[in-house]
């Protein structure tokens, strides 16, 4: 899976360049992010391109959050598309991970 990263001050913004985050690529995504998250405390996942996510994708996001929480960091999501957002609301992901409309808002919330 292709990921792009951008550093804004001490905040790492990772853009997921995939339309689907499910059992077919969740493991690959996790293995790519595990290294990146080790060196960051404040991370934003830009989910603008993700149109479908399943339980494997949700589980992977939660394990990323847990990894960051483990050393005092935090994870926020931005640009979540409507179908994914609806799912997050139903499974109450928004009560665990903060969700913002735009990257700027997510970055701003860290400051």
């Amino acid at each position, binding site marked *: 899976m292709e990921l792009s990263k951008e550093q804004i001050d001490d905040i790492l913004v990772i853009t997921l360049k995939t339309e689907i985050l499910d059992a077919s690529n969740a493991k690959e995504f996790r293995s790519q992010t595990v290294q990146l998250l080790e060196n960051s405390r404040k991370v934003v996942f830009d989910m603008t391109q993700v149109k479908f996510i399943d339980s494997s994708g*949700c589980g992977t996001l939660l394990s990323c959050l847990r990894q960051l929480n483990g050393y005092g960091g935090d994870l926020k999501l931005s640009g979540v598309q409507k179908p994914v957002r609806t*799912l997050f609301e139903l499974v*109450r992901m928004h009560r665990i991970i903060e969700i913002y409309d735009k990257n700027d*808002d997510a970055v701003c919330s860290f400051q």
Partner: protein
Amino acid sequence: MRAFLITTNELSERTPWGDAYPSAMMPLIDRPFLQHVVEYLVNQGFDRFDVVLCQHPEKIKNLLGDGDRWGVKFKYHLVKEPSKSILTLKCLGFDNSNEWVLLVYADRLCRVDLRPVKPALMSCHRILYCTKYPENHHKDVKLNWSGWAWLSNQCCLAAPANCDEYLLFEYLLSFKYSAPEFVNVSDMIRSCSYSDIMVAHKAVLSKQFNGLMLEGREVEEGVWLSRNISLHPTVQIRRPVYIGQNCRIGKGVRLGPNTVIGANCVIDDKTILRNTIILPNSYVGTSLELQDVLVDQYRLINIRLESAVTITENFIMGSLPEKQFPRWLKSIPSRLLAIILLILTSPLFVAMILILKIIYKRPLFDQKEAVRLPVPHDPGLWRVFALLRFHSFKPTPNRASPSGALPDISWQDLLFSFFPALINIVRGHLCFVGVAPRTVSEIKALPPDWRVLYLQSKIGLISEALVYFGANPSQDELRAAETFYAVSASWKYDLKLLAKYFGQLVYLWPKPDMKT
């Protein structure tokens, strides 16, 4: 005009078992309080709404939609916890520097004139709507903020990120550029607690707080009847009384004064209701005498004593769920399939019993007390059943999965756990596919949001967690699998999981190995 609605305040009394409910969604007469607030603001000329959501966002979105119904626009903002609501205010995005926004705690409704801010008042940056304590009670009249305020662009942007209502009020009082402007509010109703809801109902019934849209027609002074009501000729009514749609009021019932019966309720024969609010979808049994109480399905809240009890006996009080396909009908295909499988595997079953009983001299079954699903949130209403499985020779692994879950996708576990549990499926306790069975203590140990979704789901032998994450999922994987299944279960999805389970069993599909 633009309004910023905060719906994140919670009515924790409603569900003391963890599922906090937005207080703005509590019913007032015939619709949620929030809808009254929106309709009031729309009538005052507001056409843009920013709504902050935390608990049950899907319910609020379903209620309000995109605003087309009122010819206005809604934009929704999700927050992780209520204290983050004001952070959203800072990220609103204003069209110009002179734009003002009306901050509204949506569990309050003030009857005030909300015309746009006059240019002369622009320099004060905020206008606070306040009620006052009675002057004879306090020497100095103390301001009591209603939760409504006009705020300037600058005032919003400088607001503290994380604060509760009290801290926000402190900030608004002390905002550096100028002194605040105050407007006195004489009439206000609230839904912040059950006693507030009681007071609000009385205020509307007695027409002290009028002007709200009500569905019922006032057939005579102080008596409102909605459509499709079945009212026995012997019913006695003392006004004011409001009866919602699709209600059935039995023989000899006495209603009022100050009584509201929400939609889809049944009040059984000879019951007397005075100063009582019956919330929608409630059943009230025969020959009861209720006064100064609020009935919320199987919860009885006494306002005078400030106490609440859960009634576990259905014939006294209970919930009347909205019409849906009967659950027992839905379970017929899986029960038939389980019977066929039991018949086909009966020689194997008998052989297993003989081996365990005669050769190893062990007890046949290892019974776990699992909770039947779906159930309400109150543990008093949970029903348990004995989940059957043959005593296994494998040591129980130390894992995150609940104790009732299938241990693994293997032939041995199929033999020891799957086949005996077919009896549970035949009895209708269990389905083939669902969330893993849990004991009462395991359910109580779940985090509240997870628990709420789990309790709404159905239990099954084969779970999404087992199929996608294997025998040893982490807590995060288990949570993701169970919450995802709870909201997306359907017969097609169940067939897909069933196919994957048997595919993995016969090595057509690889078993999950995505441990991180």
